[in-house]
Each structure stands twice: as C-alpha cells, then as structure tokens.
C-alpha cells in the first residue's frame, strides 16, 4: 500500500470543505416527524406537531409560508384522504371560490403522492395555496404552501416544492 502524501491529505480536506459548503441545510431535529431540506435563508419553526418554514425578505414580511402538518395514520387511498383533508382545511381557513390547476398525483416506489394548487378568495384577501401530500401506506403527510399574492406564490413555490421533493417520513 502506498503511503499517503501530505499534499493528498490537503486535497482531500479541500474537497471535503467544498462538498460540505455546497450541501443544503437539512432538518435534523429529533422533534421533527420529517426529514427534509430547508431552503437557504428560510426559517424553520415548530409548534406542536406543525412545522412552519418562512422565506426571507418577502414583502410585506411574512406574506408566504410553508406548513408541514403532523403526519397522520393512512386511511385507505391517499387521493381520497388528501381530498378530505384539503377540503376540511379550505373550510377551516375560510377559503372560497377556488380556481384550481389540474390535480397531480401518482406513485413512486412505495410512496403515493398528490398535489393540488389553487387560488382562493378569503376574508383576508386573495390566497394562493399548494397542498402537497405523500404517504407510505402507513402514514399520511401533508404540506401546505400559502402566499398572499400570485407573485409571492410563483416566485417561492419552486423552493416549497424542493422541500416536498426532499421530504421523508421518519
């Protein structure tokens, strides 16, 4: 076996540092029911079983957010459970007159998923929401991305979807 030269160790360290700095932040909290990638600059808060991610520098401040609701036991088909939960939340939040895009959904390996994007009227003004769920047959997870304007929604939804794509149930 050839001995390792000091220059090789330096190269390895530099390579490690480059990889480490390019790696995104991950939610590693022991309290979280999820494992996911936090977009750079977003702030993660936990309250009860709900995790809230807020993007930086939205104007007005706090006009967009991503909610990760506590996982629930799976009940039958994911699409059906998703529609029930979404409908209940829409009612609970006073969202009305939805203008929805074509629903999305499918199966990836053992994961089922469904997504619904729509704009609404509400007492507080217009709302633009994305409901994103996934299930592994045992548990049902739901994310809600909400924004107060189409501009905020369209600008930030790629990052919200990045969280969704990185999401794993613990």
């Amino acid at each position, binding site marked *: 076996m050839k001995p390792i030269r000091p220059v090789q160790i330096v190269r390895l360290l530099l390579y490690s540092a480059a990889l480490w700095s390019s790696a995104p932040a991950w939610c590693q909290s022991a309290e979280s029911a999820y494992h996911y990638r936090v977009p750079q600059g977003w702030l993660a808060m936990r309250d*009860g079983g709900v995790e809230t991610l807020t993007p930086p520098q939205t104007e007005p401040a706090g006009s967009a957010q991503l909610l990760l609701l506590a996982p629930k036991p799976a009940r039958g088909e994911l699409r059906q459970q998703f529609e029930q939960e979404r409908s209940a939340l829409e009612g609970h939040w006073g969202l009305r007159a939805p203008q929805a895009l074509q629903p999305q959904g499918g199966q990836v390996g053992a994961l089922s998923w469904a997504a619904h994007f729509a704009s609404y009227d509400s007492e507080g003004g217009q709302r633009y929401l994305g409901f994103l769920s996934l299930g592994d047959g045992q548990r049902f997870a739901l994310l809600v991305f909400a924004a107060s304007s189409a501009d905020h929604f369209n600008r930030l939804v790629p990052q919200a979807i990045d969280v969704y*794509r990185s999401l794993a149930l613990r």
Partner: protein
Amino acid sequence: MLKRWCLTGLLVAHGAGADNGIPVQVPQLPQRQATGAAAPVAQAAHTATAAPSATTQQATYQPPPAAARPDAALAATPATTVQRSQATGLCRLDAAPDRQNLSLLGADALPRKHVPLGEFRVQQLLHSPDGRWSLALLKLRGRAQHALMTFDLSRCESQATVELEGLPEDARFEVDAALLRVAGRELRIPLIDRSQR
C-alpha cells in the same frame, strides 16, 4: 486505500440528500381578478366557516395552531390585519411595505403605535400560537448586524430589543419565552417583562 475510503464516505454523505423522486410539476398560478362584488351568499357562507365548528375540525384535521394558519402567518396584508384584530381582541404587529417601520394596530385595526426602525429593516415577523406575542427579526442595512424586537400584543407595546449574532435558524415559542437557535446556539428570549408589570 484511505483515500478511496474517504472519497466514498464523502460521496455517500453528499448523496444522502437525494430526492424522493416525486415528479410534481412546478405550477404557476395566474393573478386572480378582484372579486369585490362577490355574491352575498358566498360571503355569508364564508362568515360561517371563519369560526369552524368543532365537528368540522375533528372530522379530519385538528386545526394547526393559530400562528401556523396561513391567515395568521400572512397577517402582514392589511385586510388580514382587520380580520385577526377583530377575532382576538389583541393588537397585532404589521410591517410597512418598505420594511423600515412597524405598526401596532389595535383591535379596531387603527394604528396605536408606530415603531420607526432607522437603518434596520424587517426580515421576518413571527407570531406566537396564542396570539399574545410577536417577534420582529431585523437586519441593519448593508451590514451583517441583526436584532430582535419583542412585542406584547395584549399590552400593545414593544417589549425588548436584543442583538443577535445572526438570523435565527430555528425558532419556537414556550409559555413565557421564545427559543431561538442562532449560530448553532440556543438563545432564550423572555417574553414576560416583569419590570413593566
């Protein structure tokens, strides 16, 4: 051998960030047209659902805490300000669009106090689940200097200003404190200023 082991370890660690493979397409929602002339029936129906019955809530989701609801987090919009203030009877904190001023609005949605921030700018507003406290995360313009202001919404007053080493990576509320993680360290911000009581 060692080199190969290190490289393999690094690549495995980096690859742990792999996606779940869900092929959801990124949507673009069109701007809604103003619907100020909404049918009275729809308005009445909404009023009924604004305070949903326990039955409705328990049928599916237990509702998220108040601060986790979209209408609470999106409270920076003036229309939402009116809604929240009427619902809770507490003041609420609002940031000006230019992020250079904060306003405390009363339950009647009228401004009670105005907080000019000088060279600081609002980065984020955080609201406690019980609606009693708000935090404003601030950054000094052009410099990496951060601060936090706490607001007691039951008294409609600013409470304290704390310098921070950076923007928090994580925040949560306890009964009498906000817990922030800043630069890897947990910081406890008391929310009951006993000197004022």
